[in-house]
């Protein structure tokens, strides 16, 4: 009984840590001018959600991605649920692909994160720039969307390190 209680406490502590990291990521992501280069800011929420999905499996990862997506929607004043839905699908799929086909290491994580960032930012570009018919979409895509995905992917090991540390630190006893 004591062992089960301890195990539950460890799990709760782990997920609390994940959510603290997520809150930190959301705050940094919305921080005006933080790490901004030539008008491009990196994404932090997506790499954290992806890290959790990779280390905790597709279902916990998908639900965590929903939380992360809602946080993104709410901090950015976007349509509630759109980014949550997008992150859920992306993290669920990425987690399964990594589990089946890839080893978890920095290079693979950066590559997967880059692809996921590109998918999410392209989705946003499609709905909020291309479909309303704004001017010079190709230029916008090349100068903002692609660099943002690349920049986010390059910084994604930070999220991976944080998530890996939490996942390794809070391991319940196998009893």
């Amino acid at each position: 009984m004591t062992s089960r209680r301890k195990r539950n406490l460890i799990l709760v502590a782990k997920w609390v840590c994940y959510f603290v990291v997520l809150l930190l990521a959301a705050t940094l992501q919305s921080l005006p001018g933080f790490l901004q280069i030539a008008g491009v800011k990196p994404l932090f929420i997506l790499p954290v959600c992806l890290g959790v999905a990779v280390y905790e499996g597709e279902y916990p990862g998908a639900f965590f991605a929903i939380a992360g997506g809602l946080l993104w929607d709410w901090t950015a004043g976007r349509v509630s649920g759109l980014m949550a839905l997008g992150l859920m699908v992306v993290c669920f799929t990425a987690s399964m692909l990594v589990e089946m086909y890839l080893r978890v290491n920095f290079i693979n994580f950066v590559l997967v994160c880059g692809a996921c960032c590109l998918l999410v930012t392209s989705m946003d570009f499609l709905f909020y720039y291309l479909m309303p018919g704004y001017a010079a979409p190709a230029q916008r895509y090349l100068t903002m969307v692609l660099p943002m995905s690349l920049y986010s992917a390059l910084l994604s090991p930070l999220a991976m390190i944080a998530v890996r540390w939490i996942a390794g630190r809070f391991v319940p006893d196998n009893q």
Partner: protein
Amino acid sequence: MKDFFYSKKFKVLVAVAVLLGGIMAWAGANGRLASAPEEILSAILAPFQQGASAVSGGVNGLLDKYVRIDSILAENEALKQENWELRDQLVEYDRLKAENDAYKERERLEEDSPEYTYASAFVIGRDPLEQFGGFTIDLGTLDGVQTGDVVVSDQGYLVGRVLEAGPASSKVMTILQPGSYAACVVSRTRDSSNLNGSSQYASSGQCVLENLSRDTLATVGDEIITTGLGGEFPPDIRVGTIEEILPEESGRSSIAVIQPGADINDLKHVFVITDFETASGQQAQEATSGAQSQAAG
């Protein structure tokens, strides 16, 4: 594979996805970006964003500062303690100076336009995916800010309007956003027209004045101000200057590219005009509620 799709976990995930779709549909049907949980969360997150924003100025130059501190420590280890104390005082001084500057600007604006009620606000959030300079400020409905309130820069230049006001923070739509119409006039020639955002010029922080007459006498450098017509913006708010005048595609009119007086993509501090009298002498809040009921109808 069949078991995978019939598993309980997968069904729960699909149910949540459907729920999210419902939330989006509800938000869309109600004409609101935010939902009730969002307002609660924004109240919870506001202190985090404010705290992070307060240190953001330091974070950007973090590397430089640490390099400098290291060199000072290496050169003069004995003054370490004193150095830290001086830095603490400097941070405090900077904070007080920023506050003092903000209050001075507010006093100046209130002297210039005593008919307006100003609220001082700091920019606490900018989404990386935001394309037209929109941002979040640290004032909400608890501070008297409402949806539709006009936002101006420290120097009194038009920045935009409050798109959505939460309890402790508000989202601002800037004049760079296409569709953010404001009735304006060229100060020197009195040519009246609509100010609008342009996706073509937004990346360079500019907007356009549409449907100017082909034979307009307006020239580069002329000041643009609001007219107050329509009741959504107060009259005589400065917008910026004409950067370029171009013929419109149809050839029947001209557009003027406007360089706003406020550097919208780099604003740190703004003022929200929470109350003003419109050109017709009507109180702003009455005008706004009238416009909202018209929109609802």
